[in-house]
């Protein structure tokens, strides 16, 4: 399993440099604001699971924004959500309410109609794939929420 990447500001606090940021949102127009990246964490996609990234931004208006993306290996377009948050509780809610299980597809190419041993094996493999993706995502959420920069920024 690849190591969980965790990037962000470190060392003594320095005044953030605001830049124009545009964040993808599936089915919607992007979320735009002036801000700076505070924390980023995630895992790349593999054959066994989807990848994900969680990024937390400080905005020039004193709010925060969270961007969550789910990546399929070999696909350049993620399932994405982004929203402005004002409190630590809203950050927790945003991370918890993004459910990777709802965003993942079953491989119905080898469809349920072929209810054979192979079909059952496929279903088991899909379940394993979904479980691994969700477990990884929840671990990253925990890492983000435990990060003192997230706590202080959302305070």
């Amino acid at each position, binding site marked *: 399993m690849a190591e969980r990447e965790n990037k962000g500001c470190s060392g003594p606090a320095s005044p953030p440099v605001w830049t124009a940021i*545009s964040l993808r949102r599936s*089915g919607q127009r*992007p979320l735009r604001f002036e801000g700076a990246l505070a924390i980023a964490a995630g895992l790349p996609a593999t054959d066994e699971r989807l990848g994900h990234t969680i990024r937390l931004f400080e905005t020039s208006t004193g709010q925060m924004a969270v961007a969550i993306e789910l990546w399929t*290996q*070999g696909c350049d377009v993620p399932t994405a959500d982004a929203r402005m948050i004002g409190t630590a509780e809203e950050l927790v809610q945003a991370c918890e309410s993004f459910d990777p299980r709802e*965003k993942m597809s079953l491989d119905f*190419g080898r469809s349920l109609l072929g*209810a054979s041993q192979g079909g059952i094996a496929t279903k088991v493999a899909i379940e394993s794939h979904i479980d691994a993706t969700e477990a990884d995502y929840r671990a990253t959420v925990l890492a983000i929420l435990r990060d003192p920069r997230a706590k202080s920024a959302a305070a």
Partner: protein
Amino acid sequence: MSPVTLFSRDAPATDYVEPTAPISVFASVPEVRLHRTGQRPYVFEGVEVCSATTHSPGPSLWYEVNLYRKQSGSLVIDVRFFGKPDDMKDRCRTFFAESLDEVAHVLESYDPAMDIDADVPVNDNSVPVSMIALHAAVIRMRLDEARRQFADLTGEILHQLDVH
């Protein structure tokens, strides 16, 4: 002039090209030929503004969206649906817009349900009820997947265009 867009089932989308220079700076504007399901091809002179696809090795259906700017300045949205199993038909649709905001509206209001065939064999008495239920479940899964992929694609295109 030669056509720049061909109907290609498996080829990934071309790289995104920033919509920068006005179209009039091109010495010759290429001819674009778009396939349309159930209609004659739509042919015009223009350039690609951006494109994106949800194609990946796993899922059995995927979408591709290409946006073109015609020489007149209006926009053409090319939406393509591809399905791997034999019972899913590829579909190509073309939409028109005068502004990026209209492009956003077209994509936001597109309903992928029209790309999924509801082929439950309800009129065949020899088909057991359990099989009909399985057919229905598969259709439902395809519909969910098509909607998810098209929403992802819409988000990606609007992000590329920076529409707000």
